């Protein structure tokens, strides 16, 4: 039936389909934003505190799954095989930490932001300020990447200039983040989750049926090929990979200790990311916080367990389409992506054939990670509306995450800086104005970075996770599970954690402090995995310093005992 439909409307074309689907979804988001606009700071920061666990789970999932999850992840796995598991386990395992160690207690604590918790638990504005700085660095790094993703989709599918694409994205986000605050964002994210998961699953299911006859991609990529040869798809891909000189797909090439460190850093970083944590402030009760963490992970896992299947399908399809084939016979999608510069072919031996091999001197084809998901439906020759759907899904993923991050930025400025540190007497109405203004400024800064991406964006994404792992995570965990932890310990731990992370990243990514190569990595751990080391350092420093400094006051110790008990959570307050 679906195939019938697509056949009947085949004449419309990919581009018009994209206009239609993107137009419908954008109208929907704006409609929701107008319906759910915020009237108080409480609605602006935590959506009024009455979001149901299901809605919060969906919103958290959309918030979390960014352009990186939707567009880049399957592509990265596609090119790195087994090693891609660091992202899969790292970006889902963190939710177990969130549900078991953080979300219920932070909800009971009942404030608006993460620096709020740090500042109150460690009875110090210095701690609060460290929290604000970390939250801003992490969120700005992320949001620039999202805007870039928006620009990329617009430029490829609607054939507008990449900068125009960024500006259109900015206006949309500005509209519903500024108007609706957390309340508007929450309900648009619910809609965006539906759009993005549908857009990710439809092509995956189509291709799974095409290649293996199994409609469930999670099973399909472990099945035999549909051609009746009796060969397993993964065995075939292992064979294709080794024939071209690559490592076996299911083996990977990173060292065990590095895989271990990166996975742990990503897990802990996930659990320490402020835009994820604040989502748990929006539900009514402590038990709702636990439940919505479970729902969020379930909804995230639908995409994350499909991504490795998509990676295998796309890699196999791509190798079969291009390897040793004449350049002149390449399909239309190949040429279209060439114009964006994300596929480049240089015929080194002038034989007119495409040599795609591991050997860098002989390899003639460079394919960017980011196009595997976007081009996948075209490579598999799926109907036009499916291709357009992927574009709408990628936009939903990028916009929902961007909006969540912008809210963290504006709350950090209007609530943590202005209300808590600069002008405590500010009225609720004026604080709301300040929150909206900081959201506007944040969108403009993000848009600037989207149009003029600094060279270090890719490098700093890992830095964002490392920073969250090295700073927030130990401070929050110790704050909940170690009653005697005091401000001296926590502040020195956070500062040492962040600084060591910054040192290692800048040394090996930007060549500061004498630089260094892979051979110089400490214990063989890459900068991406160093968050784990910095986190351990934070814990050790915090505990040692605490032993030599005064205990926290009785009122703070009582606060810790109070957040451990789930009842009487009350409502989020100033």
């Amino acid at each position, binding site marked *: 039936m679906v195939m019938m439909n697509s056949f009947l409307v085949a004449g419309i074309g990919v581009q018009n389909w994209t206009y239609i689907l993107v137009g419908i979804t954008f109208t929907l988001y704006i409609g929701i934003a107008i319906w759910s606009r915020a009237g108080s700071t409480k609605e602006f920061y935590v959506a009024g505190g009455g979001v149901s666990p299901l809605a919060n789970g969906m919103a958290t999932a959309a918030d979390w799954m960014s352009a990186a999850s939707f567009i880049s992840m399957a592509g990265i796995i596609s090119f790195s095989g087994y090693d891609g598991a660091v992202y*899969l386990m790292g970006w889902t395992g963190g939710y177990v930490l969130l549900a078991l160690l953080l979300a219920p207690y932070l909800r009971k604590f009942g404030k608006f932001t993460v620096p709020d918790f740090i500042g109150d638990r460690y009875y110090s504005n210095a701690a609060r300020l460290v929290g604000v700085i970390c939250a801003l660095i992490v969120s700005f790094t992320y949001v620039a990447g999202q805007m870039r993703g928006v620009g990329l989709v617009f430029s490829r599918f609607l054939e507008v200039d990449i900068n125009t694409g960024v500006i259109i994205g900015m206006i949309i986000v500005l509209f519903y983040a500024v108007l609706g605050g957390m309340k508007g964002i929450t309900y648009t994210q619910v809609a965006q989750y539906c759009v993005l998961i549908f857009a990710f699953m439809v092509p995956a299911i189509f291709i799974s049926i095409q290649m293996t006859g199994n409609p469930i991609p999670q099973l399909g990529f472990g099945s035999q090929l549909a051609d009746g040869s009796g060969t397993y798809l993964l065995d075939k891909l292992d064979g294709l990979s080794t024939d071209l000189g690559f490592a076996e797909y299911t083996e990977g090439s990173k060292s065990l200790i590095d895989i271990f460190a990166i996975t742990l850093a990503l897990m802990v970083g996930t659990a320490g990311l402020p835009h994820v944590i604040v989502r748990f402030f929006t539900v009514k009760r402590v038990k709702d916080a636990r439940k919505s963490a479970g729902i969020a992970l379930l909804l995230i*896992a639908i995409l994350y367990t499909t991504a490795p299947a998509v990676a295998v399908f796309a890699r196999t399809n791509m190798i079969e389409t291009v390897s040793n084939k004449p350049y002149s016979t390449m399909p239309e999608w190949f040429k279209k992506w060439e114009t964006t510069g994300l596929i480049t072919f240089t015929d080194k031996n002038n034989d007119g054939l495409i040599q795609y091999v591991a050997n860098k001197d002989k390899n003639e084809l460079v394919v960017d990670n980011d196009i595997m998901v976007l081009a996948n439906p075209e490579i598999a020759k799926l109907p036009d509306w499916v291709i357009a759907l992927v574009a709408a899904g990628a936009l939903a993923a990028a916009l929902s995450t961007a909006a969540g991050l912008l809210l963290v930025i504006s709350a950090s400025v209007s609530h943590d800086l202005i209300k808590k540190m600069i002008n405590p007497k500010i009225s609720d109405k004026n604080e709301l104005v300040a929150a909206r203004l900081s959201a506007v400024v944040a969108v403009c800064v993000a848009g600037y970075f989207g149009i003029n991406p600094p060279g270090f964006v890719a490098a700093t994404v890992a830095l964002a996770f490392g920073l969250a792992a090295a700073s927030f995570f130990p401070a929050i965990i110790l704050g909940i599970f170690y009653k005697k932890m005091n401000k001296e310990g926590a502040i020195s731990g956070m500062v040492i954690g962040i600084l060591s992370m910054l040192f290692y990243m800048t040394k090996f990514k930007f060549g500061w402090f004498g630089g260094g190569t892979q051979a110089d990595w400490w214990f063989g751990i890459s900068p991406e995995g160093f968050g784990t080391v910095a986190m351990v350092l934070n814990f050790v420093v915090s505990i040692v310093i605490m032993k030599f400094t005064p205990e926290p006051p009785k009122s703070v110790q009582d606060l810790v005992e109070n957040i451990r008990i789930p009842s009487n959570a009350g409502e989020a307050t100033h």
Partner: protein
Amino acid sequence: MIKNKAKLYWKENIRYVLILMFIWFIVSFGAGIIFKDALNEFKMGGFKLGFWFAQQGSMYVFVILIFVYVHLMNKLDKKYGYDE
């Protein structure tokens, strides 16, 4: 008396957390990373087992772990009268 109750509640909570975190570690860092090569000797359909844990199985277990925790804690809250 009230303090004592809170202490017992906290102790049981920590026990649940430790058990679940142990499983969390075993499926991801254990089966998916440290013992991956050993597990890859076994196959499940077209999947080598270590590869499957790293790219599929660990995530399924994560989801189950959270819902088990939700269930255990809801029961514990009731037992101590902390439910709402």
